[in-house]
């Protein structure tokens, strides 16, 4: 077994793997992240053959770790980078308790955070990656970490995970050397990782105040709509992996968030439209 330590935002991982290759891929993609040498980790992620002989024959990667799902299906070895990222996400989703986790992307400007949440296909990840190339600080495309004591958002800038058409769109604005290998035919389609801009990594310990929440929806005429607070609250509980696990702390953090953060539903058909809508909202913020 081989091992690698990684730090993403406030979280320290130990990855152990039966194969060296996924760890080499990860080490290359995370090479400009802070390095920890002291051996401590919040979570261990394991990548192992599904059965001992499957290490060599049609190798498939079983994802587990400190926190695991009993029915997680294995992935082929050439998707082991995806497996590692899934394993790291799973530890956060099931085990992280220091923040309220929102399944949302986040970017920051002027000390204020724009959060975007919504179902898969809403474009929240691609939008955050795009804004990160246009003057915003990238804070994360998967989880926004809300500090229940201060109400501030903590950055979790793991690799940006692009799917299908978003890969080509980002190729137009991001240099090739920030891309990971293309993984074709994963359960989610084609996947390619992008290293976030270096300032997102350098500033990953800087928290910022949530200023705007959007529920983007791709493929409809551009529009902004108000949403009722009850609807926002319910949708955010559905977008949080640990709302229930945090008990009263989660309740207080989320009600405070819903009471204080302006929120809109946003329909759009292109990145440019979304950018215009976001700019117009941003300029009206207090």
């Amino acid at each position: 077994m081989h091992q690698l330590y990684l730090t993403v935002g406030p979280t320290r991982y130990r990855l152990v793997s039966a194969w060296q290759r996924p760890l080499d891929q990860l080490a290359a993609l995370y090479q400009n992240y802070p390095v920890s040498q002291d051996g401590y980790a919040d979570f261990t992620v394991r990548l192992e053959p599904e059965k001992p002989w499957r290490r060599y024959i049609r190798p498939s990667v079983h994802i587990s770790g400190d926190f695991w799902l009993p029915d997680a299906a294995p992935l082929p070895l050439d998707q082991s980078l995806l497996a590692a990222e899934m394993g790291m996400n799973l530890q956060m989703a099931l085990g992280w308790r220091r923040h309220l986790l929102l399944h949302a992307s986040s970017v920051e400007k002027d000390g204020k955070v724009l959060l975007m949440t919504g179902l898969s296909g809403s474009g929240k990840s691609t939008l955050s990656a795009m804004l990160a190339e246009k003057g915003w600080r990238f804070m994360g495309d998967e989880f926004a970490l809300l500090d229940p004591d201060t109400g501030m958002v903590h950055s979790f800038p793991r690799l940006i995970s692009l799917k299908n058409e978003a890969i080509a769109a980002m190729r137009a604005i991001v240099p090739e050397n920030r891309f990971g290998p293309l993984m074709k035919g994963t359960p989610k389609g084609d996947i390619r990782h992008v290293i976030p801009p270096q300032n997102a990594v350098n500033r990953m310990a800087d928290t910022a105040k949530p200023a705007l929440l959007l529920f983007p929806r791709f493929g409809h005429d551009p529009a902004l709509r108000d949403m009722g607070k009850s609807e926002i609250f319910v949708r955010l509980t559905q977008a949080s992996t640990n709302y229930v696990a945090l008990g009263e702390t989660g309740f207080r953090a989320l009600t405070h968030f819903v009471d204080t953060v302006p929120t809109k539903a946003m329909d759009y058909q292109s990145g440019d439209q979304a950018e215009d809508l976001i700019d117009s909202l941003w300029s009206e913020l207090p």
Partner: protein
Amino acid sequence: MSQLYRAAASEGLIQHPLDSMTLVYQKSSGITHIVADPVPAILTVMGEQALTAVDIAGRLSDRYDLEDSGDTAEIVLARLVELCSLGLVDKV
């Protein structure tokens, strides 16, 4: 209608109004309930006493200066049955 009901101790419930609905966080279960009127009012007037649906209807009429249309107690009773199944209210 003579059945007595008692709400979960008020320090065990956190009410938080949002637009038309009210969130009720129940400490003993860790469950967040989302309820509409008149449930928050019912829980508030019940305090920690054991009361019948008629008692509660009377208190609602007094507190909120309602004109009793005659069916208040029935409406209250229907809500009480639901609240019992959620564990927010207990039969005494």
